[in-house]
């Protein structure tokens, strides 16, 4: 760790510690893993380089995750829309998925990740895509259309309080607050 800490400036390290939920060790480990994603010649200024999405998805923690594309899209601050991530985006992601992050932050970002069409609410199409992500890509593992219809109807009945046919952030957070397991399952540890 001594080598990588000399590359990450101390003020930046302290600032990251203040602004994220990660501690110093985790930030240094994140820096190490991030710079390993870059080719050797660009490792010196890893702080300001952007890593393309294909490289990010080779990380073992994201490789098999069905929400990998959504996660990259939500946390990427790239203006080009290519979902490339800088080191700060990477830290952002780890911070939200860390142990110390509050349930509020986690539920907000979970909402954004599940909002496939990015309209600010979860409507039927979003829910259908979400269930398909959960059950996997195999044809035999999916729910058939009757079951999907029944499931979405039930989910909306249970969580849509203002009865507008969609689930907004407050309703989503209300559902999440009923589950004590959410905080421990919405976690990625490097």
């Amino acid at each position, binding site marked *: 760790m001594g080598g990588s800490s000399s590359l990450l400036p101390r003020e930046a390290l302290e600032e990251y510690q*203040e*602004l*994220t*939920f990660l*501690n*110093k*060790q985790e930030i240094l480990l994140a820096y190490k893993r991030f710079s390993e994603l870059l080719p050797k010649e660009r490792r010196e200024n890893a702080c300001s380089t952007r890593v393309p999405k294909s490289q990010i998805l080779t990380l073992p*923690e994201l*490789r*098999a*995750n*069905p*929400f990998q594309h959504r996660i990259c899209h*939500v946390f990427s*601050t790239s203006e080009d829309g290519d979902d490339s991530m*800088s080191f*700060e985006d990477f830290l952002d992601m780890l*911070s939200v998925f860390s142990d110390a992050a*509050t349930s*509020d932050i986690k539920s907000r970002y979970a909402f*954004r990740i*599940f909002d496939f069409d*990015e*309209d*600010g609410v979860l*409507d039927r199409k979003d829910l259908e895509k979400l269930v398909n992500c*959960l*059950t996997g890509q195999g044809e035999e*593992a*999916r*729910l058939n259309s009757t*079951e999907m219809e*029944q*499931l979405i109807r*039930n*989910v909306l009945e*249970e*969580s849509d*309080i*203002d009865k*507008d*046919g*969609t689930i*907004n*952030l*407050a309703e*989503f957070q209300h559902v*999440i*607050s*009923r*589950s*004590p*397991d*959410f905080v*421990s*399952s*919405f*976690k*990625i*540890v490097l």
Partner: protein
Amino acid sequence: MSRPPTVTLRVPENTESDGREPSPDNEGALHSSFCQLIEEQSSLVAGAIEVELQERGREPSALLPPSDPVATTGLEPEQSEQHPGYATTLRILANMPSRTIGRSRGAIISQYYNRTARLRRRSSRPPLQQLSLTAQPSLRQYDLGSDPAHTTLADEQSLLELLSLPPAQRSHMLLEVPLSLEEKRSLRRQLSQKRSTPGLRSRSADPTSPCAWCQDCIVLGCRTFWYRFLALVHTSQPWHYALKQIGGRFGSSVLSYFLFLKTLLLLNIFSFLLLLVFVVALQAAYPPAVASPRPFTGLELLTGAGSFTHSLLYYGYYSNTTLNDPSASSPSGSTSPPGATQLPYNMPLAYVFTIGASFFATCILLMYSIYHSFGKSYRVGSSTGVLAIKVFCAWDFKVVQRRSVKLQSENICTQLKELLAEQRLRSCPLSLPQRLRHITVLLLAWLLALGTVLGCVVAVYYFSEHMHMVQQEQGAAAGSEWQQEGVLLALPLIVSLLNTLMPHFYNLLAAWEKQDSPGAEVYVAICRNLLLKMVVLGLLCYQWLSRRVVCSAKCWETCVGQDLYRFVVMDFIFTLLDTGFGELLWRLILEKKLKSKQKPEFDIARNVLELIYGQTLTWLGVLFAPLLPAVQVLKLLLLFYIKKTSLMQNCQSPSKPWQASHMSTVFITLLFFPSFLGAAVFVSYTIWSSRVVLYVGAPPEQPPIDSLCLLRVKPSETCGPFQGLQTIYQTLKVWVELLEESNPNIAWFSWIPQYLVENTIFLFFLTGVVLAIIYLNIHVLRGQRRIIRLLEEQIANVCELCVL
């Protein structure tokens, strides 16, 4: 935006903390940031709205499902002319903070500022009855017609709001606001520029003050050292990587078993250290004269007898005198150097106090962790809306291996299908004959289970009587010492065998029974297993106290200690055998013979109950074998690595749904309620038994067994710290009397044992207090559930009103 308008309601809090009922006039102040928001966004979105309205004209009108009650809110393009404010309404509502997620930085910050500031200032929630229906954000307040040009950006406003917070709150808010890190950094830079007071940097950059420079160096050095120390502490967490590996492959459910094991390990280490420091180490420093120390052979590790009998492991080794007493004529074998300080140490008192203190501390730790765990795992309303919770919260992001992810997807799919099928069944209930059949099957299964428990208990009783007779015959026939010790292993063997085989039988029974929900299956299995283990342990405790145990040593306490040691060791051996046969062999059979890709599932409930059983044995035996927690620590360490290896090689995660935090609470409650409390009752009875004896006339020589089977437990005459006393408790009474005599000023001290400890009323009072607290909490939770339901109805009603 092709959806009907919605209103995200917030029950507003008064910005002043006097708790007055919020009136519509205050809403303007409260929602000022929303006004800024609307002004900023209105120009951006106005164009988009026009485009959408044009598109709507092209779309077919019957797009929304007719069953949607809100669909008929005049979304046809013709009606937009009839409602002139419609476009503005859409615009306003589309810019409500709930919709601007990820879009407007100023919106997010101001929303966060309001919420944080409100949370900080409020002291109590206003009661529900005081909030009137009008105290809600109403559209009347907003300027529907005109949009005054505002030059102040929402960003500037929010920055000023941030500056007004104290620094600790400011950094906390920066941490929690859901912006990207880049934006947070720029915000922080802007804040530090705006700050009028010179920061530390300018002070430290002053070169003309060497004192300040020294001070800064020291502060910096301390901070660096502190950060390094914290980083070290974080990485030195035991088993951090191993637990991460297990969580990554099997998810939170299997991880909860290993976390429970870690908790037990810490509890045992704590008890062991307490006993080591106050009892064991001191006795080791002043060893009593032992007759003839026997040579060590390997069998002692199994039987606990032989050379272990007269060792620190058991009760009999500890002396009943004051160690290192300056007035003692012949300190037993210890040669204190001349001139050394003589610190007498009362061993019997230390023994009973340390054991009492370790039980008390364990009790407090367990109650605290139950409270903590219950707070984390219980949520109001978690039993309703199961499907939504499952869809949103079921995915465990910790699982990273490709095969495990696939398995998790399959499990979630199966669970969703099961829940949907259950729901369909509930809508069409079973017919009468089917229900009768189901109830009969359930009753039969329970009768069978209870019958087997009774059968096991009777079998254990008769077997122990038989072994008792065999032992007496062997003792009379003067058989070899090892034969006698070997025979003593038979009872632990049988009990462990029953404890290992019966759970598998109960699993078969559960498969035949087919409970309604998988959650109920787990509870029923736990109940049956626990019942069996506790009843068998109860019988064994009765036998130990009635001194049916005969062994070579003269001390009955050492015999009981040895028996418990044997039980602990046998339990460990059988756990290993169960892991070997249940997991390894079963996987080989499945792979080679049946050629199936499935591996055996890791049965979490059964393994946790085994841990609880082992821990109960340790707590029962602490009084008679003070080093038993050390044995348990070694056992748990070995068990962790063996279970982890077997898990990685042989098992897959369970397919049934498992609520990890809920089950953790259940397990720690089970650890406290039958296990720890039972052991505490046993130990208290052994110490205090003179209070509960019932006999008429002169006390007989032999321990009396009256009609109620209450026994008097008298310490042995010739060994242990309490030789010659009537009961162990007498030590304390004698000490208190001595204190009274030596110093009449603290005569009040004798009040404590007399009224608090000996009097059972204090115990009843404590129990009453605990029950009252539980009752109050239940009522608070009921009230919260009612409030949630009322609020939901309110929201639904207001939305309908808005629509009309």
